[in-house]
């Protein structure tokens, strides 16, 4: 089962601990105290130097939008393959849901491509050899990981944007990713739409930095991404 595989491959990222610690950090940032600043700074230091060669996402809002575009490319490619080679015994209901999700992700991808125009990064090459497209467990486990990842990525990217219009666009997309995440989770385990692995004791969803997100995404990408010019606050 991919869930277990991914937990072995990325123990920190696909388990919730790293993420909920991050939320707690944010919370203490709000509650005040320099400890939060230090904690954030050390988290940043840890990530410095990663994802600094390959296709350059760019800087400023353009860079953040390219970052979102990269994730949407990954998701759209995944669901396109899921529908092209449905897993064994995929029910009609599941097929309909997954087709919808595919269409949404294609719409997101193509939207960013059109909006970024000449500033858009090229089409990325994906690497799905870790996914068994014949297996419901593998496909839905990956889908869950991608959707939760997408939610945490947009939640972390909001503060990086300068334009209120782009923030609103990101907001329009992230809640749809959250809807996907909830549905996929309910298909795997009814009632797990917002369980403790993604929502912490303060009722907050996961948030991840671009470095954290790209570390996970890179396991499914042949293309290398350079996020070194992305804004950090």
């Amino acid at each position: 089962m991919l869930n277990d595989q991914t937990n072995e491959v990325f123990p920190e990222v696909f388990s919730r601990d790293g993420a909920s610690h991050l939320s707690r950090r944010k919370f203490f940032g709000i509650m005040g105290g320099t400890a939060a600043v230090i904690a954030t700074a050390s988290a940043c230091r840890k990530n410095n130097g990663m994802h600094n060669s390959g296709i350059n996402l760019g800087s400023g809002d353009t860079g953040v939008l390219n970052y979102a575009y990269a994730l949407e490319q990954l998701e759209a490619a995944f669901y396109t393959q899921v529908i092209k080679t449905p897993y064994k015994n995929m029910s009609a209901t599941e097929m309909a849901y997954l087709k919808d999700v595919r269409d949404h992700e294609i719409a997101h991808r193509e939207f960013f491509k059109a909006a970024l125009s000449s500033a858009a990064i090229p089409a990325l090459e994906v690497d799905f050899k870790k996914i068994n497209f014949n297996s419901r467990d593998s496909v839905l486990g990956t889908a869950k990981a991608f959707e939760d990842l997408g939610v945490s990525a947009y939640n972390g990217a909001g503060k990086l944007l300068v334009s209120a219009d782009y923030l609103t666009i990101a907001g329009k997309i992230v809640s749809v990713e959250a809807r996907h995440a909830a549905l996929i989770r309910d298909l795997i385990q009814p009632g797990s739409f917002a369980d403790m692995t993604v929502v912490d004791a303060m009722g907050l969803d996961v948030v991840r930095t671009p470095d954290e997100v790209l570390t996970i995404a890179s396991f499914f990408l042949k293309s290398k991404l350079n996020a070194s010019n992305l804004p950090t606050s």
Partner: protein
Amino acid sequence: MNLQNIFSVIEKSDPEIFDRLDSRRNIMKQFARTSGKIAVASIPFALGSMLQKASAAPPPPTGDSIPDTLNFALTLEYLEANFYIKAVEVGMFPDAASKMAFTTIRDHENAHVNFLKTAISAAGFTPVSFQFADFDFTAKGNFPGVFSDYGTMLAVAQTFEDTGVRAYKGQAPNLMSNNDYLTAALQIHSVEGRHAAHLRYMRRKANLLVPSGIDLKPWITLDQSGIGSAAVQASYDGEQVVNQAGVMITNIGGFDISAEAASEAFDEPLTKEQVLAIVTPFFA
């Protein structure tokens, strides 16, 4: 209670707060822009000196102040939390799974109330406060069965969650001057999205959709609610758009993307005024 005047609650406890907030909104923004790295809790202290300098500040150009925005969010969370507390208490659930789902959502809404209360207080402002008696969950008689008919209860829950998603989305730009508040609001926003998706899933599974035969999914198709009451329509109006930032989403890039899918792929924001119009009937 007249919801348009909800902030009179704050005003009563702190008569000068609007003076201070209104004339200083843009200072708040300026302040946060130039010192985004400073922990939020230190704002009241630092603001003190900034406010003195800016006594002749012009009125704010657009948007609500951060404390106004957080109190607006807190108001919506109180509405939701009180609804779910009562719903779990009444306990009309057909099975353990639906009870568990409502309990989970109740706990999240309570956590949101506590989080926002704490954050607003920590920043030196006064949080609004509501109790069960402040609400009328029948929405002035529109949903008489809200706590006696399972389908009505689910329909109201779905509407609250879908509205909450749209409300947070609409408010996010007002929090841009402070990264911590913005990120926390986004983290709540996506949790509301998860709730909305699950309630829609529950309503579909329980075969409670109206008109019957409608295919309600975890995402919002066009401006369909799947609820047989015109009273909820304002929560769905505008969700049918298929053009984003000047980009036509239907059949975008030569892909076979229907208008339905194009509308589902993007949730739409609501303004504070739109949200207040929707939730006002739910206040006693």
